[in-house]
């Protein structure tokens, strides 16, 4: 099958590659670009571990072909740290609130939460739970993931993070 030339901007850098049309975006990111932070979880559009930011949308990169993303702008978890290499507010939130255990779902969680906070800078707990409903975690029970995102929202809004009363 003839290969197609694609170009994208990934984490701010122009990249290119030759792909078969059937190459999934997640495989292009992991194998061609060697950015293995984006995980392949279920491969069936359910778990959200492969979530990346594509032109301002959270998408499951196991269900998009790389050719569809030709010319687009992508952010993966490797692009989430602050420019000086320190942790972003979201990454810090996941660390401080113990928002992960095994960590497999975390790149997808952080990428989805990033877009959620871009669209809604002060989400309620319900907004967070609905907004994160396309990402599965088998360890945490989600409580600490919600707290991690609340922590990040507070930090980004320059307000003190207050735990909701139990």
């Amino acid at each position, binding site marked *: *099958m*003839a290969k*197609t030339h694609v170009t994208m901007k990934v984490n701010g850098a122009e990249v290119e590659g030759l792909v*078969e*049309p*059937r190459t*999934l975006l997640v495989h292009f990111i992991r194998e061609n670009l060697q950015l293995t932070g984006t995980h392949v979880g279920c*491969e*069936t*559009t*359910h778990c*959200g571990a492969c*979530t990346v930011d594509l032109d301002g*949308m*959270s*998408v*499951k990169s*196991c*269900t*998009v*072909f790389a*050719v*569809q993303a030709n010319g687009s702008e992508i952010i993966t978890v490797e692009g989430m740290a602050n420019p000086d290499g320190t942790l972003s507010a979201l990454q810090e939130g996941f660390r401080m609130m113990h928002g992960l255990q095994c960590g497999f779902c975390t790149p997808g969680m952080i990428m*989805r939460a990033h877009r*959620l906070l871009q669209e809604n800078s002060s989400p309620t707990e319900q907004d967070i739970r*609905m*907004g*994160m*409903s*396309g990402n599965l975690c088998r360890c945490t029970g989600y409580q600490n993931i919600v707290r991690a995102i609340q922590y990040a929202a507070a930090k980004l809004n320059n307000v003190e993070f207050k735990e909701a009363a139990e």
Partner: protein
Amino acid sequence: MIPGPFSYHRPASLADAVKLLADLGDDARPLAGGHSLVPMMKLRLATPAHLVDLHDVADLKGIRGYGDTVVIGAMTTQHELLASGEIRQTLPILQEAAALIADPQVRYCGTIGGNVANGDPGNDMPALMMVLGANFRLNGPGGERDVPANEFYQGAYFTALEPGEILTSISIPVPPAGHGYAYEKLKRKVGDYATAAAAVVLTMAGGKVATCAIGLTNLHETPLLATDAANAVIGTSLDAATLKKAAAAAEAIMAPAADARGPVEYRKHVGGIMVMRALQRAAGGTA
């Protein structure tokens, strides 16, 4: 989980897309959001030789209000529907239903056109289109034509679309201001198709139902308009006996498949409950 090989086409105009699909014939499939088709391709249950990606066709995008009608381009995503002020004001039931489709990531990609034109009995929008009296604009080798939603669905994955034809836009008459609406969907988890779902749009006058339409999702091989059930509530104040009568009339036309979502009897039973809940909530929301 790697799809079979295919050639990828990305036409820039509707005319080019239609011509490509006509020339390539049965080996080609249009690609909208891809969140029904790509999973099927990964399972090799679909092996199209050509994909015609519709994303660059500007004519298929956008939501336009014309007072008494709203026209929604087929490539409008569920996410865009949820964000649209026009839809919030004129067709809020579409937002209620869109929020129950799949999950946030899928809604950024999934389109209303793909949802209504795929012919999957599990899709949520078709029953709403029937309830709202929508018209589908189709474009193909034979030119342009309009088909009412009520005449579009012929069987599971079998619609009025002719070979080479695609859905380009959906035209929906705006329901009267103050109308009541509800979409009640029972599902096992976020992202699941409906075990049973019911859509209701109604108007009330003097405490009684003046007009009513009821649609059913995933309770037959096509979406259904439950006309007898709707007629049973007109002129009533939706008392308990009437609700039961409407549920029974709706159950009489249901023929769901027995699958992991439950046996036939269960799905019909909860289908009736969805009808009753949707009627009550729709009536409670009228102005």
